[in-house]
């Protein structure tokens, strides 16, 4: 609120010049506060990790990456992400379509359940899976007798990651589906297109940015999830250790370089994710891109003009 007050700090009665000057001063002040805040909270800490990691040159860094436990943690993390992303994407689109386009009893419950992972602590998510699939539960015990171990093993870690990542695609796609309405689908449908064809040619092109944005958020979370995975995995080095739990393990073993190395690998992956987000945002702005314009008057081009980007602020012309 301070920002608003100060930046508009001029009354109509004042001379125009003084008003402009005061506005500029206020603007500079607010800008400095904001930039300093971001510098201290975000930029410097992240920069410091790089400084510390490469204090001893690149060699310790490479050595830390060659550790078998790093290798196994890295590949396990990638594996989990590669299972999670397709599942949450496909099921996410199906769920979003069901919630937006269909009327059925219990729809509100589905809608509420989608948000639950956002409202839950990752630790609580881990615990809830632990309670269902732990050997002491009936289900866990039965699975165990069938030779399937969930907790302290891969299946539990995948379940936990899907759980925490579940809302992203759905929540990105739902508003887009609402936005585009049903006109185009209806038109395609009445013109005799099959539901499949309608989906591929009308709905999917319209929601693709939403899907991709959701996929990117999912990727970030799947690679970086810690709390839920920590509980269901038991953090067993060499077996169920992911990159995030590897960071903790190395830190606790006084191997700071090892911890920083894994952190930087995760950080670089995060950077790729950030770049992807940026690209998508500018992609959304390219309203008459070749892909949308080749379907004249399609939902896709309509989407471009009204897309409710969760980060619509990226619009450069908006300022």
């Amino acid at each position, binding site marked *: 609120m301070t920002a608003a007050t100060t930046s508009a700090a001029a009354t109509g009665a004042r001379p125009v010049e003084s008003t402009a000057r005061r506005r500029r001063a206020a603007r500079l002040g607010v800008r400095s506060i904001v930039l300093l805040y971001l510098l201290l909270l975000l930029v410097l800490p992240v920069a410091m990790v790089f400084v510390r990691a490469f204090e001893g040159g690149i060699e310790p860094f490479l050595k830390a990456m060659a550790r078998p436990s790093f*290798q*196994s943690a890295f*590949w*396990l993390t*990638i*594996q989990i992400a*590669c*299972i999670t*992303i*397709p599942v949450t*994407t*496909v099921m996410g*689109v199906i769920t979003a379509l069901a919630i937006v386009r269909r009327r059925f009893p219990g729809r509100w419950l589905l809608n509420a359940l989608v948000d639950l992972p956002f409202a839950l602590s990752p630790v609580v998510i881990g615990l809830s899976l632990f309670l269902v699939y*732990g*050997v002491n539960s009936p289900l*866990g015990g039965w699975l*165990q007798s069938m030779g399937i*171990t969930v*907790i*302290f*093993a*891969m299946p539990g870690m995948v379940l936990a990651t899907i759980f925490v990542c579940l809302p992203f695609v759905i929540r990105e796609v739902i508003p887009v589906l609402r936005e585009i309405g049903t006109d185009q689908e209806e038109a395609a449908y009445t013109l005799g297109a*099959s539901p*499949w*064809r309608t989906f*591929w*040619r009308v709905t*999917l*092109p319209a*929601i*693709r940015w939403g*899907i*991709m944005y959701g*996929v990117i958020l999912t990727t970030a979370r799947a690679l970086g999830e810690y709390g839920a995975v920590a509980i269901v995995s*038991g*953090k*067993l*080095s*060499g*077996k*169920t*250790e992911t990159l995030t739990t590897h960071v903790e*393990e190395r*830190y*606790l*073993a*006084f*191997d700071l370089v090892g911890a920083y190395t894994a952190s930087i690998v995760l950080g670089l992956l995060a950077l790729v994710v950030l770049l992807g987000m940026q690209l998508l945002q500018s992609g959304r702005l390219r309203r008459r891109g070749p*892909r949308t314009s*080749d*379907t004249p008057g399609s939902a896709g081009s309509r989407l471009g003009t009204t897309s409710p980007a969760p980060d619509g602020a990226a619009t450069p012309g908006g300022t």
Partner: protein
Amino acid sequence: MDHIRHRRPLGVGALTIGLSLAIAGGAVAQDAAPSFEAAPGALTLVAYTTPREAYEELIPLFQATPEGQGVTFEESYGPSGDQSRAVSAGLAADVLALALWPDVERLVEAGIVAPDWDENEYGGIIHDSVAVFAVRPGNPKGILTWEDLTREDVVVITPNPITSGGAQWNILAAYQAQILAGKTEEEAIDFLTRLASRVAVWDRGARDALTTFANGQGDVLIAYENEALFARDAGVPLDVVVPDATILIENSLAPTLIGDAPVQGQAFVDFLYTPDAQRVYARHHFRPVLPEVLAEFDFYQPPQLFTVADLGGWPEARPRFFDPNTGIMAQIFQTLGIGS
């Protein structure tokens, strides 16, 4: 299905899905990833975190012996309690190296460990340690005895004994030292209360506590001797004080009944009791269980060294002290909690 004919405008979304599925397929086939099913003939060692560096040295040594020739290893390290729970939940294991007796014993009922696992010559113990005080270099606060830990000017760090099995040694040591000093049980419990009130950080595990201390918290950390010396080797500035009355920490080792490589597992266990292997432990600051090897190294023998057996053994001591609801420590936490 007619939709197959209309694939041209697939859209980026579909492409993404396809791509990630392809990656998934590729990644699952990735062989650098950890396997949850032990490879045939591989010996799976499930150990707690502390002796990790020792095993990284011991395994090649074993593989150089006739019995160990060609034996491949799968290793997993983690907090002792988690490892125990993981094995009971189905984690494959041939040999267990855990921090304390109850973590192995609880696997007996499930048929994972033989009931007589602790009845070998060494009682199922592979190496020992003692509970010590890690203090700042030069011991500026002059901390030498358990009594010193309750001084007003001393800040203590120890893991939480309710959550960390390893921390239970510390509490038992503090208690029994009082009994040996001629105190009554009541006075000893009162001592534990005063000690607990000096603790600034109750970490979840021994390693967390060590890190907390290394990061500058507290004047003294109650730790295992080997952990404190490990931290010193890793460059943490600290001195180690062995109190005159302290507990002998006994770490367990057991082959399992469920392993894929029972013969090799037993051979590995036997190897770990050889003088050569025990020397490796000793170099990593564990006290060897072979007396002749112990004598080769310069471990300080405290005059009043006791074991958990002096407290009635784990089956008696554990519920009495560490039951999360009715145990002595739970009551102390409750008292202090209400107080603060």
